């Protein structure tokens, strides 16, 4: 009946946010959401296995804070120009997570963070190639991704 309950609930919520919170729109939105989730089921995507979903808000706020900090750093770099010796460069980071949804989430986090762009994921050795705006903080980038994001993501998608 409902192959993707979270998707169905999210779609209903979206429908009501866009229209209004009334009983009529709840019914209409739920109908649309159920049919949409059946359409999604026929695409047969991997079903994400959420283990500790309650850690998601924690991840969200950590990421929000980190993005705000790197926004300031990158804005400063654009306005004032580079400090001497600082340069942009490529960075290869080996990852342990294999779950597709977790990888997608990590890609969203890294591209949303100004100063780091996810270039490609190598499924052969499970490493990612990134480009960072400030390679001086190479160690810091690796530590942030490995310890702050990857550990939490591995706990969430076990």
């Amino acid at each position, binding site marked *: 009946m409902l192959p993707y309950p979270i998707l169905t609930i999210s779609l209903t919520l979206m429908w009501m*946010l866009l229209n209004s919170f009334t009983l009529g729109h709840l019914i209409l939105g739920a109908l649309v959401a159920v049919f949409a989730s059946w359409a999604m089921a026929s695409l047969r995507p991997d079903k994400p296995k959420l283990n500790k979903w309650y850690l998601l808000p924690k991840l969200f706020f950590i990421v929000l804070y980190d*993005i705000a900090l790197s*926004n300031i750093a990158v*804005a400063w770099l*654009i306005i004032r120009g580079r400090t001497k010796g600082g340069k942009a460069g490529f960075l290869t980071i080996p990852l342990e997570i294999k779950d597709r949804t977790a990888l997608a989430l990590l890609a969203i986090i890294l591209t*949303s963070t100004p100063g*780091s762009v*996810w*270039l490609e994921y190598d499924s052969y050795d499970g490493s990612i190639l990134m480009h960072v705006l400030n390679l001086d903080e190479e160690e810091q980038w690796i530590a942030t991704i490995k310890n702050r994001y990857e550990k939490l993501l591995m706990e969430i998608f076990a």
Partner: protein
Amino acid sequence: MIYPAVDLPLPVAFAVAFFLLVGAALALIGAIGFLRLPSFYERLHAPALGTSWGIGGIMLASMIYFTAASSRLVIHEILIGIFVTFTTPITFMLLARAALHRDRTARSHGVPRKYPIGPEERPREDDESQAS
């Protein structure tokens, strides 16, 4: 009904103005960086300012303003933020990987090549087990 902006209480007006200016300033700096940074890969970083807190600031300002002005909770702007955040990586990755592919094919200097030959040619684990 929506009250005119003049009738907003002062703290709310300040909050709206603050977030609106932060968002607009970040989007502008992102655009300037997009114009001024030297290489393609560096230029990829600049628009991320606009798509992260640039859109976030303007979104928050809009949510605060319309919630205060129409005296009911208006939060559907959050959908814009969600969709922008979830769709920009696709464009970014498409552009970045196109550039990477081109630079690798042209043997450009400074672009990492993981393997001396093309990625299709790398050894596979099952090949080795067949050989032994």
